C-alpha cells in the first residue's frame, strides 16, 4: 500500500444526500433534530438503513456531537469524528471518512451538519463569545472587531488596493449569485440584483456592504460516503470523489505576518486535488466556491488559475460563470443568495452531487460530468478542494 492519497482517487463515492429546515426552521426545531432528519433523508436517498452506518462524522453550531447524533439515530458506530474546522468542515469530514474506511475502521460513513442559528438568534456580530484570556480575547476583542465580517473586509481592502480593483468587481459576485438563485426555488434571495442596487447597499465594514455578506440561515444537511464498489449497488448513480486536498494555516488570530492574498494556499490545495482527479480545469463542468463573502469568490477564482490576479471581476462580468456560461460558478445561488446555515460546505457538496446526478431542474448545468468544490473555514485558517465526477475514472 502506498501512502500517497492519490491511490484513493475515484475509489469512494457519495451515495446519498439529504437536507432539512433550509432557510427558516420552525419554532421548536432544534439543530439536532434537523440534522438527524437530513440523515434519514440521505439514507432513504441512498437506499440504505441506519443499521448500515458504522461511521458518524458530525457536529452542530460548533459543538461536537457525533455521539449525540449517533444516539438520536440509534447507531452504534465503530468510528466517530467531530472535527471542527469551520464552514468547510463537511469536506474535511469526507476526507477523514475515506481515510477511516480505507483503514478498515468503518465502511459506510454519515457526514452531517445542522444549525438553527437564525431561529435561535445565536449569531453575534462579535463572533463566538471569546474567553478574555485567549489570544483573541486579549488582542482582538477589545478593539471592536466584527467577526468574521471585519476579517474579510480587511482582505477585500488589501485586494482592492493591490489590484486597483473596484467595488463593482465585488458586486459581480453578488450579482452572479442572484442570477443562479432566481433558478432555485429554495433560495432565499430570488430577485435579480443590479449593479446600482449593489452599490446602494449599505457599507457594514468597508469596503464590504450588506450585499457582500452571506445570509444567516437555518438548515441541516447530510452525506453518505462509501467505497465505489458498494456505491454501484445502491439506489442512485454514485458521485465519485476523484480528487481532494486540505490545508491549514494560522489565522484564527491575524498576527501571523503573512500575505493575505498569497494565492499559494488555495492554489496548491486545488492543484493537488485536480492532479489527483486527472481532470483538467478546462474539462470541468462547474465550480462551487464557498462564498461567505463576495471576496472569497474573487480570490479563489484567481488562486485556482481560472483567471489572472485582479481579473476575477472582469471574468465574472463576461458572463462565463452565469447560467448558460461556459464555467458555471455557484449554481445554487451560494451562501450569498441561497442560504448559509453556518457551514455552507455541506450545501456546496449537496448541490454538486445533485448537479452531477442531473436533479437540479431549472438551474441544471447541461451534460454535467465533473465539479470542483473549494471551501474554507475559521477565518481563512482551513482550506479544502474536492473534485467530483459521474465516472470513477476517465479510462
Amino acid at each position, binding site marked *: 500500500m502506498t501512502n500517497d492519497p492519490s491511490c484513493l482517487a475515484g475509489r469512494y463515492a457519495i451515495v446519498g444526500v439529504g437536507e432539512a429546515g433550509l432557510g427558516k426552521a420552525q419554532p421548536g426545531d432544534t439543530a439536532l433534530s434537523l440534522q438527524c432528519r437530513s440523515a434519514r433523508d440521505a439514507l432513504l436517498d441512498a437506499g440504505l438503513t441506519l443499521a448500515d452506518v458504522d461511521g458518524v462524522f458530525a457536529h452542530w453550531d460548533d459543538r461536537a456531537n457525533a455521539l449525540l447524533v449517533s444516539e438520536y439515530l440509534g447507531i452504534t458506530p465503530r468510528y466517530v469524528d467531530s472535527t471542527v474546522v469551520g464552514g468547510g468542515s463537511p469536506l474535511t469530514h469526507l476526507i477523514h471518512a475515506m481515510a477511516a474506511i480505507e483503514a478498515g475502521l468503518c465502511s459506510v460513513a454519515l457526514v452531517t451538519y445542522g444549525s438553527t442559528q437564525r431561529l435561535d438568534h445565536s449569531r453575534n*456580530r*462579535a463572533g463566538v463569545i*471569546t474567553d478574555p484570556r485567549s489570544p483573541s480575547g486579549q*488582542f482582538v476583542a*477589545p478593539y471592536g*472587531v*466584527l467577526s468574521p465580517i471585519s476579517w474579510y473586509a480587511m482582505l477585500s481592502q488589501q485586494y482592492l488596493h493591490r489590484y486597483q480593483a473596484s467595488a463593482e468587481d465585488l458586486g459581480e459576485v453578488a450579482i452572479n449569485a442572484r442570477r443562479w438563485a432566481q433558478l432555485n426555488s429554495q433560495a432565499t434571495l430570488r430577485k435579480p440584483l443590479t449593479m446600482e442596487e449593489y452599490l446602494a447597499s449599505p457599507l*457594514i465594514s468597508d469596503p464590504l456592504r450588506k450585499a457582500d455578506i452571506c445570509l444567516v440561515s437555518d438548515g441541516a444537511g447530510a452525506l453518505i460516503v462509501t467505497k465505489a464498489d458498494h456505491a454501484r449497488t445502491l439506489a442512485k448513480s454514485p458521485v465519485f470523489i476523484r480528487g481532494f486536498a486540505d490545508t491549514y494555516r494560522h489565522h484564527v488570530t491575524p498576527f501571523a505576518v503573512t500575505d493575505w492574498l498569497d494565492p499559494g494556499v488555495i492554489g496548491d490545495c486545488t492543484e493537488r486535488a485536480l492532479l489527483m482527479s486527472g481532470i483538467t480545469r478546462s474539462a470541468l463542468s462547474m465550480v462551487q466556491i464557498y462564498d461567505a463573502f463576495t471576496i472569497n469568490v474573487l480570490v479563489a477564482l484567481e488562486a485556482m488559475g481560472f483567471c489572472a490576479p485582479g481579473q476575477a471581476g472582469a471574468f465574472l462580468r463576461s458572463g462565463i460563470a452565469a447560467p448558460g456560461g461556459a464555467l458555471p460558478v455557484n449554481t445554487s445561488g451560494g451562501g450569498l443568495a441561497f442560504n448559509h446555515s453556518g457551514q455552507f460546505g455541506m450545501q456546496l457538496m449537496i448541490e454538486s452531487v445533485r448537479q452531477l446526478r442531473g436533479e437540479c431542474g431549472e438551474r441544471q448545468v447541461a451534460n454535467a460530468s465533473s465539479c470542483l468544490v473549494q471551501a474554507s473555514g475559521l477565518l481563512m485558517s482551513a482550506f479544502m478542494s474536492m473534485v467530483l465526477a459521474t465516472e470513477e475514472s476517465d479510462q
Partner: protein
Amino acid sequence: MSTLPARPLPQPTTETAAYWAAAQEQRLVIQRCSSCGHCQFYPRAFCLSCLSDRLGWINASGQGRLYTYTVCRIAPSPAFESRLPYVVALIDLDEGVRLLANILDADLERIAIGARVGVCFESVSESCTLPQFTLLD
C-alpha cells in the same frame, strides 16, 4: 446617569502580564528571544523560532505601517456604538511583528494601506490601557 455598557477587556495571563503592565505605563513592548533574537507577537511561553524559554521584552519603536484596515459602520456590541464609525487595522511594526488596533481620530479620507502609524495609549479602565495607533505625517 447612565453607565456605559461594558467593553470586552483583556484578562492577562502568565505569558502576557508583562505586555499589559507595560501598556499601563504607556510602553509598547514586544517579546524577544534572548537566545536567537526572534521577535514574536502575541506573547508565548517559549520562542517559536528556537524553542528556548529565555524570552525577554524590548521596548518597541511604536512605529509601523498599515497592512490593511476596515471602517466598522456597525458595532459588535453596544459598548462600541458611541465610537462609530471607527477604524480597525493591522499594523506591521518596524520590529517585524503584526498587531491589531484602532486608528484613533483618523481622517477617513487620509487612511490608506501603507500609511505610517505610531503607537498611542487609551485607558479603558482603571487597570487596563490598550495600545492604539494614530496616523503619522
